[in-house]
């Protein structure tokens, strides 16, 4: 009990005297805050990108690409293959007995980024008349859906946010044709929000793609019926296709970019943390040195070395903790919800929102506390061990 009282007493003396060492402590706090800011900005970018791709797709929808093509942009599917897929088991049929299937075409067009005015690749997707019915969570937020057979397009919300010239009612020149924007759609932040959609047959003719498609999309009766579909495709020699669940397909696309962002972020944060650690150690050593008489006096009065140790360590942890909180707050205030885009694996832009999750803040604070712990430990040891006589003899 006595030692606990001592710890509390010494700690409160230390923490109350913090303002006296304001500038010294302030530099440590800011150093740690910077480390946390850098780390979190990278992790939040990665998390936002991942959330967009993970939030895309449902288990109830299957996508088929030509075998080996991996990306929509590389895939080719002929019209007769589309018809064969329509006969597959396990897929949902409409009331008239026809299959719910959409052959889709994916062409890359140029867009101009609002922020920089630079060109970027945007995907223009030609969708079949059942295309909209095969998109879960789709809502038209402004205007209406395009009329089949016309030069009309609808635009994703994310795309409008990042790229200029696609506002409702405007006319845009894509490829050899002019298109009119008649609607804006939202899909809960999914990848599709970075796309332009038009009628598949119009896209085929204006981009001279004949009757070819790139992907085929069907609704499955149950998520498990994907196996029936896979068996059917495997046993039909005219179909050299690969079958993915929509969710699986998009989840597979996120890993490379996310890893890239994370592998850039962590080493940077660690290098900075080592720099900040040096700063924290300096601060704490100086703090101990400036109070060596004070500590010695306490020891003369009968306080043990251990309370001094705990108090110094606590001071360091508190400073680092404050730094961590400031860093996280900074990211939250200035960066969270920030919309940006990068090149996805299909050679086109994917718009996403920087997302600071509680789990990330936790990682940031933990890093801050590690810096505080190491930065405080050795100076704390010195505080506990400094011989009373030496402390007094020092100038």
């Amino acid at each position: 009990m006595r030692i606990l009282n001592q710890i509390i007493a010494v700690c409160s003396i230390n923490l109350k005297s913090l303002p006296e060492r304001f500038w010294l402590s302030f530099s440590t706090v800011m150093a740690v805050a910077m480390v946390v800011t850098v780390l979190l900005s990278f992790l939040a970018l990665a998390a936002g990108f991942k959330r967009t791709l993970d939030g895309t797709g449902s288990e109830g929808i299957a996508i088929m690409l030509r075998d080996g093509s991996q990306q929509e942009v590389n895939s080719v599917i002929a019209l007769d293959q589309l018809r064969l897929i329509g006969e597959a088991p396990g897929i949902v049929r409409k009331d008239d007995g026809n299959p719910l299937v959409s052959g889709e075409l994916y062409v890359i067009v140029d867009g101009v980024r609002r922020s920089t005015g630079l060109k970027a690749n945007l995907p223009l997707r030609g969708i079949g008349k059942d295309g909209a019915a095969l998109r879960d969570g789709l809502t038209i937020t402004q205007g209406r859906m395009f009329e089949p057979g016309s030069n009309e397009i609808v635009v994703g919300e994310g795309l409008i946010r990042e790229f200029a010239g696609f506002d409702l009612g405007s006319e845009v020149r894509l490829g050899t044709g002019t298109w009119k924007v008649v609607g804006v759609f939202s899909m809960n932040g999914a990848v599709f929000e970075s796309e332009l959609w038009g009628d598949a047959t119009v896209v085929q003719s204006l981009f001279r793609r004949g009757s070819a498609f790139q992907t085929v999309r069907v609704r499955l009766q149950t998520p498990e019926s994907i196996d029936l579909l896979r068996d059917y495709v495997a046993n039909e020699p005219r179909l050299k296709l690969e079958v993915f669940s929509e969710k699986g397909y998009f989840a597979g696309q996120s890993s490379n970019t996310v890893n890239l962002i994370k592998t850039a972020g962590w080493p940077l944060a660690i290098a900075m943390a080592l720099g900040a650690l040096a700063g924290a150690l300096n601060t704490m050593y100086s703090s101990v040195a400036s109070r060596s008489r004070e500590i010695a006096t306490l020891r003369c009065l009968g306080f043990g070395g251990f309370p001094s140790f705990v108090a110094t360590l606590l001071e360091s942890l508190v400073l680092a903790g404050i730094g961590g909180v400031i860093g996280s707050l900074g990211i939250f205030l200035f960066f969270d919800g920030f919309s940006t885009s990068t090149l996805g694996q299909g050679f086109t832009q994917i718009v996403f929102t920087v997302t600071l999750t509680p789990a990330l803040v936790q990682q940031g604070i933990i890093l801050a506390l590690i810096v505080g712990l190491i930065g405080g430990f050795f100076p704390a040891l010195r505080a506990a061990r400094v011989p009373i006589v030496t402390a007094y003899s020092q100038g």
Partner: protein
Amino acid sequence: MTDFSLILANLFSRKLRAILMLVAIFFAFLIFGVLAGVQNGFNNIGGAAGENRLVTINKINFTQPLPISYVERVRATEGVARASYANWFGGYFQEGKNQIVTFAIDPESYLDIYATDYKLTPEERAAFLADRSSVLIGRKLAERWGWKLGDRIPLSSNIFTNKNTGKQTWELTVAGIMQPAQENADTSVAFFHHSNFNESVTFGRDTAGWIIIETADKKLNTDVSKRIDAMFANSAAETATDTEKAFNQAFVGQLGNITLIVTLVVGAAFATILMIVGNTMVMAVRERTKEIGVMKTLGFPSGRIFKMVLGESLLLSLLGGLPALGTAAVLLELMRAAVGIPGLALTLNYAVLGVAIMLALGLLTGIIPAWNALRLNIVTALGRQ
């Protein structure tokens, strides 16, 4: 005792503190050096591009092909010295993850234009031109996969299907290994005959992915590109012509604003280090108040003391920063070998900038304590506890 040894003695009067500050500065400049090198790498994508080289692509987007008949019309355009064309093959070796940048090229004209980038022996060149089923591979590819002259290698495409076999693989014979003719040339590429490609694909025949042009003079670049784009305006495939460097950099631009992130991170790291070091310097000089008072009593002029304190912070900055730049150069060298971005290096201009920042850091952190030391009154100095 010279001034320098005094400065050194002052700096290391508290060894631990000096070492910790050196470590902080070291990491700041290490981050600076590596990021500057990476930045340089991205800026130099397309750095190997000749100044009088233009690229013509389909105006819709580079993924849309151009009719091959355009090439002759481009060649006949005023101001065009040479023109060639190529297609993107989407190549990989055995597995999708082993991507190999492969172009189907018009052999003679393409090799002529890129003679400034790739070196071949006359025998290798002749062998490649003579055999339509042969392939040229870059030195880096040859090293990575252990391919030698005469090897038959299967290159697969994730876009095209080979009509003759019904598979997506083309069997090609290695006719030559391309050596880099200049430092920035990327030798992780493979070239094979466009005629072989054209005859065996199931779709996309008689098209060129892009046309590469060498103008008679780089001053003609703008005129030539306008002339070409005007020639194909309102045709089935309109074109967009730009310099090769601009074309290559457009790819990098698509990754998002890397420059901004790098600048912010380096800026943040610097502000932090500046604060830490500045603070510690002020403290260190304050602790030595008495010493400085004694020195003044002994007759050291104030100016000399000012210089010594400033010298101390400059020395600290350089001692921490210079090894960091050296380490960054080594790290970049290792990264370049691993990643294969040719421009990944600490170039002279960034190294000079780094040293300039070190000097600025030293001056900024030293100026306040040095000023304090300059104005210090002997009586106060000796009286202070």
